Structure formats: C-alpha cells, structure tokens
C-alpha cells in the first residue's frame, strides 16, 4: 500500500465524507437500536457494535465508502443464542465470528462467492426484508390505535418529506416529529427506554464472562459460523454494489479480514456481530461519501449523539422505530426480482423462492443460502446432464454423434443412446462435441465399446478433445485394460 493511495482514500474527499458520515450516523441510530431489540439485547449492545465496527472498518476495510455496523441479517441469527445463553455468550460468539472471518480472509476464500448463484443472493435479500418486517409485527400486539396512527405518520413523513427537502434525512425528521408529538400529547406508548439500557459512557474493553471450556465452544461455534458466512455474504454483496456505484474496484479479501477485525473488537467492547449494510452504504455514496473518512465520522458521530442526547433518545416511541424499520424492509426487498419473474428461467425463480421459504421458516439466513445453493447445484447438474446422441449410416459404418457433457449424472442416457443389436460391421463414435469429465464417463465408454465388440462389431472413437483423452488414458492405465 503506497502512501499516496492511502492519503487519497482518507483525505481525497474530506467535505463529502464528513457530510455523508453525519447523514449516515443519523440513519444508523434507529437501525442499531431496532436490530438490538430484534436480537433481544439492550440497545446499548447494537450502538456499541455500530460504533466499534464503523470505526475499525474505516481503518482496515477493503472497500472505502462502504458502511458497516450492527445489521438485521446478523441480529436475526443471534436470537436463540441470546434467549438460551445470554449476552456474554453472544459477545464470545462475536469474537469467534471475527476470528473465522479473518481466517477466511487470509485463505482468500472470497472467490468461493462466485459459486453462490444470483438467485440465492436475491432470495437472501428478499428473505431478510421479510424477516425485518415480521420482526416489527410484535410491536403492534396489544397496542392501541395510537400505535397504528403513529407508524402511519412516520411512514408518511419518510416518503413525502424528501419532496420538501433532501438536505436532512427524512427518517430523522419523521422520528423527531413523531417523538415530539408523543411527548407533548403524553401518549401512553412504549418507548426505546422501555426496551433496555442505552450507553452513558464510551465502550470499555472486557473479556466476555464465560467458562473457557469445550462445551462453551460447542455452543457458540455453530452461531459464529453462521454469522461469519452471512456477514461476509452481505458484506461482499454490498462491496460489489458500492464498486458499481462508484465505478471503482475493491479488495474483497482485505474486506473479509477487515470485517473479522471489526467483529473481534466489537465483541471485546460489548457489541454484537455486524457486517456491511446495503441501505446505509447506498445512502453514504448518494450523500457524497466515497472515502474511509465517512465510515469513521459515522461511527464517532453516532456515539457522540448517543452520549449527549441519550435522555432524548430513550423517549423515542417504538412506533417511530417500527415505521423506520418498515421502510428499511421495503427498500431492502429486491422489487425488480418480482418484475423480472416472467422473464427469467423457472428454475431460478424456484431457487429464489426456496431460499426465501427456508429462511422464513427457520429464521436462519445461512440455512436459506445453503438450501438455495444445493437446489441450484441439482438444477445445474440436471440441466447439463442432457446428452444428445444422433446416428447415421455411412456405407457399412454406423456413426454416432455424441453431444454434451459425459459425467456420472449423464452416463445412463449416454449408454441408452446406442443400438447394440443392429447388423453393422463397424461403429464410429464421434465425441468431438462431447467432454469426458470423470471415471464414470470413461467406464461408460468402455462398456459401450465392449458391448459392441461382443457382437463382433468394430468400434472407433474419434474427436476426443485433449483433456478428455488424457483422462481416458490415465484411467485406462489404472484399470489395466
């Protein structure tokens, strides 16, 4: 890393980065609080996490201009861990998540991302949007009509205030107006203060209070693994979006390691695991943020606001927060995927829907991704296992033209394509439009050959490409023919 590049990443866009950082900090606060509530911990945990992650990523991330903090995707994965074992185990899992991500970053495994089909990624964001929306429904239970009215008012302001001014984030305006209304009219509604403690000091370094035993590891490891995968998935997806928006490239392995360092720090300072956020990163770039400075400003300004204005923040009604979260879920959902449905292959749509359904049923994004990847692998194998065999008679010679990929899934169709009872002198199998992939394929070709030879028909193989004939020779030698 040369100094000039580093200097440009930090100070190439000071004014834009500071302004965008402030806008992002304001937009981060309600989300950090709401995601803490989803995870079942005090708002403090999400706010500390957002502060630590944003600040650490500013220094070690691979994608300047991207915003990372406490996120919904991660919060949703922690719910059972927090409910069954408590906060200390969550902090330990957060640190372990970071360590796993650092290992993944150093082993340059981010290339594996390309094996995750697009339809699974679309399913991922859609499922995330649905889960964030569903998490808001419980806030309505047992509430009066005031709750509904305040949520409606919040959404109304969020979507229409930008017509008046775009300088101030409309979510902030909505929260201020709805909070003021609730306070002055003394509505009896639940507030952020009812959901748990807010920070009144800067976070301090603490080692999670857990027994360092094998049993602890077996409890936190599955959560940490799911958190690492989901965190990196969303982070790398966000990085690609920021790459495209800014027309620049970024170091994905460095970003993986950066996410890891950020989570380790977050866990030691009392924060939950987080990752990059699509929505916030888009807001950042749109507001003029492009460098590392914007993430740093966002983190520092966020904690400053909470420490100074904490006693106002506790009075924000949950209705305002629920309204903001409904907007977040609407903008997270990939509406384009609904519009495109008639035009894309049915198998892609099936993979997307299975991913969404798995997540909505299990409340676990990593399981949805897993199900989606497996299903699309099956679809892919089924699609390419179609082998076409055409035949023609040339004199006394029968020519079989094989078209397709020969591997374990396609050998049955391959063998069926030949007529062994025909009365011919010689058979030519033309493999110039085929590819031999594994020993099942080699074996199937040998089987076809010997079946013809049993009937005293000569067999000639032609058109094998280099790779295929190498494999044939290698495996032939092994089986001792």
């Amino acid at each position, binding site marked *: 890393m040369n100094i000039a590049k580093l200097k440009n990443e930090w100070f190439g866009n000071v004014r834009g980065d500071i302004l965008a950082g402030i806008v992002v900090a304001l937009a981060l606060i309600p989300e950090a609080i709401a995601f803490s509530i989803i995870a079942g911990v005090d708002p403090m945990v999400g706010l500390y996490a957002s502060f630590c992650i944003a600040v650490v990523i500013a220094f070690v991330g691979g994608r300047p201009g991207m915003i990372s903090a406490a996120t919904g995707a991660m919060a949703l994965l922690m719910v059972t861990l927090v409910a069954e074992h408590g906060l200390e185990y969550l902090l330990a899992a957060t640190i372990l998540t970071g360590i796993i991500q650092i290992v993944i970053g150093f082993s340059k495994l981010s290339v594996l991302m390309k094996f995750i089909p697009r339809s699974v990624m679309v399913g991922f964001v859609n499922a995330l949007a649905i889960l964030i929306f569903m998490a808001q429904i419980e806030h309505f239970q047992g509430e009066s009509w005031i709750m509904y009215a305040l949520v409606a008012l919040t959404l109304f302001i969020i979507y229409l205030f930008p017509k008046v001014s775009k300088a101030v984030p409309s979510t902030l305006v909505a929260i201020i107006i709805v909070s003021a209304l609730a306070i002055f009219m003394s509505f009896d509604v639940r507030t952020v203060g009812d959901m748990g403690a807010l920070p009144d000091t800067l976070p301090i370094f603490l080692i999670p209070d857990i027994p360092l035993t094998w049993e602890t590891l077996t409890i936190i490891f599955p959560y940490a693994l799911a958190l690492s995968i989901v965190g990196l998935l969303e982070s790398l997806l966000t990085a690609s*979006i920021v*790459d495209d928006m800014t027309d620049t490239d970024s170091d994905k392995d460095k970003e993986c390691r950066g996410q890891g360092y950020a989570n380790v720090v977050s866990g030691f300072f009392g924060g939950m695991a987080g990752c990059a956020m699509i929505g916030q990163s*888009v807001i950042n770039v*749109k507001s003029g943020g492009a460098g590392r400075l914007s993430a740093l400003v966002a983190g520092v300004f966020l904690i400053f606001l909470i420490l100074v204005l904490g006693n106002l923040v506790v009075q924000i009604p949950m209705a305002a927060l629920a309204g903001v979260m409904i907007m977040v879920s609407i903008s997270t959902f990939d509406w384009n995927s609904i519009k*495109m449905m008639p035009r894309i292959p049915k198998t892609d749509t099936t993979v997307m829907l299975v991913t969404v359904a798995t997540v909505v049923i299990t409340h676990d994004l990593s399981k949805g991704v897993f199900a989606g990847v497996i299903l699309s692998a099956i679809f892919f194998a089924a699609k390419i296992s179609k082998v076409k065999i055409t035949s023609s008679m040339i004199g006394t010679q029968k020519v079989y033209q094989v078209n397709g990929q020969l591997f374990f899934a396609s050998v049955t169709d391959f063998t069926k394509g030949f007529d062994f009872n025909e009365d011919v002198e010689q058979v030519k199998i033309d493999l110039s439009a085929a590819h031999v992939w594994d020993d099942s394929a080699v074996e199937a070709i040998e089987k076809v050959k010997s079946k013809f030879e049993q009937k005293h028909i000569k067999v000639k193989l032609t058109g094998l490409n280099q790779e295929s004939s190498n494999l044939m020779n290698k495996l032939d030698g092994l089986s001792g023919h």
Partner: protein
Amino acid sequence: MYKKVLLAADGSEHSYRSAEHAIALVEGKEEGHIDIIYVVDGSKSKSDVLQYGNSELIQHKRKEKLSAIEKKLQAHNVTYELHIEHGEPGPSIVKFANNGEYDCVVLGSRGLNQLQTMVLGSVSHKVAKRVNCPVMIVK
C-alpha cells in the same frame, strides 16, 4: 444549427423515440455528433449486481439495453459515443451537459401521472430548468 447533441437514454421505449428526434437534429450534417448518456442510480446498481453479479456481465447488459438505439444511429450514419455515468439521473445529466458544449439536450419524459410525478419527481423538468443549452423533451 444543431451539431453536437446529448441524448439521455435508459433503453426504454421513451428513450428510443427521443433517439429518433436527436437523429433528426444532426442527420446529414458534416460535424453532427450524438453523445448518449445512460445514468445508473443506486437502486439500479443494487438490482443489477443482484441479478448479474460480476461486473463484466453488468456492463454488457447495460450496453445491450441501448443496442436498439445504437443500431438506429448506425443506420442513419450518425457518429456517436456511449457514456455510462453513476449517480442521480437528473443532476448527473445536468452536470454532463454543462461540462460539454452541446447545442441541444434531448430526453424523453417518462409519462408519469400526477401522483407518480409528485413522489418520483420529474427528471426532465429538473434537467430543463438547470441545463444551459436548449433542451428538447420528447413526449
């Protein structure tokens, strides 16, 4: 009178009709030239990355969207250049137009109803207000 024209296009039916008008302005002129600008905003970036993933495919798909317009320009023997910009459509077009010396900016109106215009805003309106050269809005 019109030699260098900026055509704002997004591959839609509206932008195709705008292209026809842009061609009519410069066709047959010796120094006639059309710059096509296609602006990709944040939500478009998000949906394209989700749908296509790798950036080469995204670039290819974006150019493909404009291929009908390109063919039309080629058929009329008009020299042109394609520019893909990132940002909010309105301000990006304005900035691009005011940085180059264009004789005219041609863009389509999306044909939204009053409510949609209120919520989404009118790109053509903003451009017409802030661009320094003549603007042709194709309805």
